[in-house]
């Protein structure tokens, strides 16, 4: 009986529900209109939030690029000073041998100093002379020597020549030293400023494009320091990183994705690869120090060690990206190949890998870009050393772009500030280039199915 009653109740409830369902909806009622208005407002709001987010991101990017660019652009120019140099045969080649060895050993520095003394004859005291010699960079004598070696007929002549200036003088010319502040608070005293003014009046000061910045290695003298040594070091380091991490990473990804049985062991491997991707890079540096330098006795500061260390760091990135790319290849392609009697390895090499290649390459280049910007692990293995020579191979001591930035940022000379920003610009240019390459490769290898 109770069953019957509850059944009746259920029926009644069902009827109410179905009656409600059947009730016609008034789509023109004010309630519905309000709802539509609300929905439109919500969509507009959401779009606006998105625009605000993009705006903030773009603003941050703009501020970054602007602050670096405004500080760094002046490093691409260098102040040069015009002096009348007498190529005195008595100094350069007293016996008239014309032997490049003799000319190469000559005291060109003395010629420049003499020219400066002649230009400002009233300078007499020792300390004043030392200041005077600071107008021209210590590196100018090498330029002079090059000139004479190239053209020995200069010997005996007097020529007006543009010489690279010292860093303080360069800073004054670029406006980074304010001559109006109290004499004790600036790097150049009143006398030096007056020399500068005299030279400017005579039209003997000018800014030229500073190609040396792109062609020379590091130096203690800011006006002689260049980025090329670090760029070459970065190149060798990345070469080693790529040569190791790309094949190992892709093979690991292919094996895990296509061949490995799904069991506890592969699960542990998988979890640990993800963990490795999150390990702070300095830890890889310590590992590199211990394993490559202390145990294997590989050369300190060498790109090969840097590359080995960065390869460890890049591997997880490449493996994860490659696995995602391989996973995205539709299973129907594998089935088609297997169904035709292709072996599993043929299926992978003929079909899966070519289709996954755009994703794999993108992941690899992103990993490489990360490695290019990495500093901490390289400090651990001695790539932070002060290295003047441009490395000739992966075994020569070298430094890399981000470490060079770190070194210059750490230097006390005012002129290194602009060098630091300029080096950042070079590094960013390389990163943009690499990311552009990633986009290009993805577009090029992308195939539709």
């Amino acid at each position: 009986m109770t069953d019957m009653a509850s059944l009746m109740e259920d029926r009644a409830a069902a009827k109410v529900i179905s009656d409600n369902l059947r009730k016609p909806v008034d789509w023109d009622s004010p309630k519905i209109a309000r709802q539509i208005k609300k929905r439109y407002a919500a969509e507009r709001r959401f779009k606006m939030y998105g625009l605000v987010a993009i705006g903030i991101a773009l603003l941050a990017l703009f501020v970054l690029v602007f602050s670096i660019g405004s500080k760094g652009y002046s490093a691409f120019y260098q102040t040069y000073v015009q002096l009348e140099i007498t190529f005195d045969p008595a100094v350069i080649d007293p016996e008239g041998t014309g032997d490049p060895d003799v000319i190469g050993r000559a005291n060109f520095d003395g010629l420049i100093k003499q020219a400066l003394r002649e230009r400002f004859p009233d300078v007499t005291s020792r300390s004043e002379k030392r200041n005077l010699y600071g107008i021209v960079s210590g590196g100018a004598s090498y330029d002079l020597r090059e000139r004479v070696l190239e053209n020995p007929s200069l010997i005996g002549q007097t020529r007006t020549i543009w010489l690279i200036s010292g860093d303080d003088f360069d800073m004054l010319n670029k406006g980074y030293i304010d001559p109006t502040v109290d004499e004790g608070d600036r790097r150049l005293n009143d006398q030096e400023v007056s020399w500068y003014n005299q030279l400017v009046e005579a039209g003997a000061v000018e800014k030229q494009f500073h190609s040396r910045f792109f062609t020379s290695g590091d130096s203690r003298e800011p006006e002689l320091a260049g980025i090329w040594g670090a760029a070459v070091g970065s190149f060798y380091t990345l070469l080693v990183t790529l040569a190791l991490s790309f094949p190992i990473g892709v093979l690991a990804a292919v094996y895990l994705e296509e061949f490995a049985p799904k069991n506890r062991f592969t699960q542990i491997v998988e979890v640990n690869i993800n963990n490795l991707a999150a390990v702070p890079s300095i830890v890889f540096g310590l590992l590199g120090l211990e394993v490559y330098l202390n145990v294997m006795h590989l050369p300190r500061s060498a790109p090969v060690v840097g590359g080995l260390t960065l390869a460890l760091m890049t591997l997880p990135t490449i493996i994860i990206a490659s696995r995602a790319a391989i996973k995205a290849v539709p299973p129907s392609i594998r089935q088609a190949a297997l169904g035709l009697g292709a072996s599993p390895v043929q299926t992978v090499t003929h079909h899966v890998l070519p289709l996954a290649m755009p994703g794999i390459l993108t992941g690899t280049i992103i990993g490489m870009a990360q490695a290019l910007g990495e500093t901490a692990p390289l400090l651990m293995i001695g790539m932070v050393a002060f290295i003047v020579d441009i490395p000739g191979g992966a075994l020569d001591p070298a430094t890399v772009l981000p470490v060079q930035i770190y070194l210059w940022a750490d230097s006390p000379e005012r002129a290194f500030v602009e060098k630091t920003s300029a080096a950042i610009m070079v590094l960013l240019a390389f990163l943009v280039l690499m990311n552009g390459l990633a986009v290009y490769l993805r577009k090029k290898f992308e195939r539709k199915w």
Partner: protein
Amino acid sequence: MAAVSQSAMTAEPSVEKPKMTARNLDLFYSDNQALYEVNLDIAEQQVTALIGPSGCGKSTFLRCLNRMNDTIDGVTLKGEVTLDGRDIYDKRIDVVQLRARIGMVFQKPNPFPKTIYDNVAYGPRIHGLVNSRDELDEIVMTSLERAGLLKEVKDRLQSPATGLSGGQQQRLCIARAVAVSPEVILMDEPCSALDPIATAKVEELIDELRSNYTIVIVTHSMQQAARVSQRTAFFHLGKLVEVGETDQIFTNPKDERTKGYITGRFG
């Protein structure tokens, strides 16, 4: 009732000259049993249709015939499947060669993202069936001809296969399977993604291919089974319920379940 269906099952599965046979086939996906004691013979140079409601195990059974289930983790199989009297699950059997002898066409057309030519040439190439470019050209042409596609594509063999229409893609997949000269062709709902005109073309093709190949086709469409097949097997809940001449199955089914399915009362 049960006795009748039992006798129907044991009476019909064997044929005179079976190309392939399945005996006492049980299949498990991990712990779930998908096939129960399937006994079925596939007659040579005939079309055998496998019908049944979704999830009844007909596709699973089809994939047992060329060991495509090997590629799925956790599949275990009991019983015996033979090709020309030899157990294909024997350890000495090379799976790669087996799949060359038993071709497969899938539900969704799945051409490789390569040119039309390369799609058809892929099989002969990897199996080393040709010695020269001319031989390969010939195989590609005959295969496309057999798949009834040559006329439509002969001017654009080097254009991407993915640019073809769905029906053309499916016929290309058939040409690709044919190019390896298989003895058996398995088709897993080959027309389910095609429009009626493309379906008609593929059905016509299946009928022509019968003279050279043994064909097993899984289909959801009973009309299709009736049109293209000589023998029909009805699967239900992982069991082979009834198998026999197509005419007999559709006009005079012996089992109540078969009758129910083909008259549309369930499934």
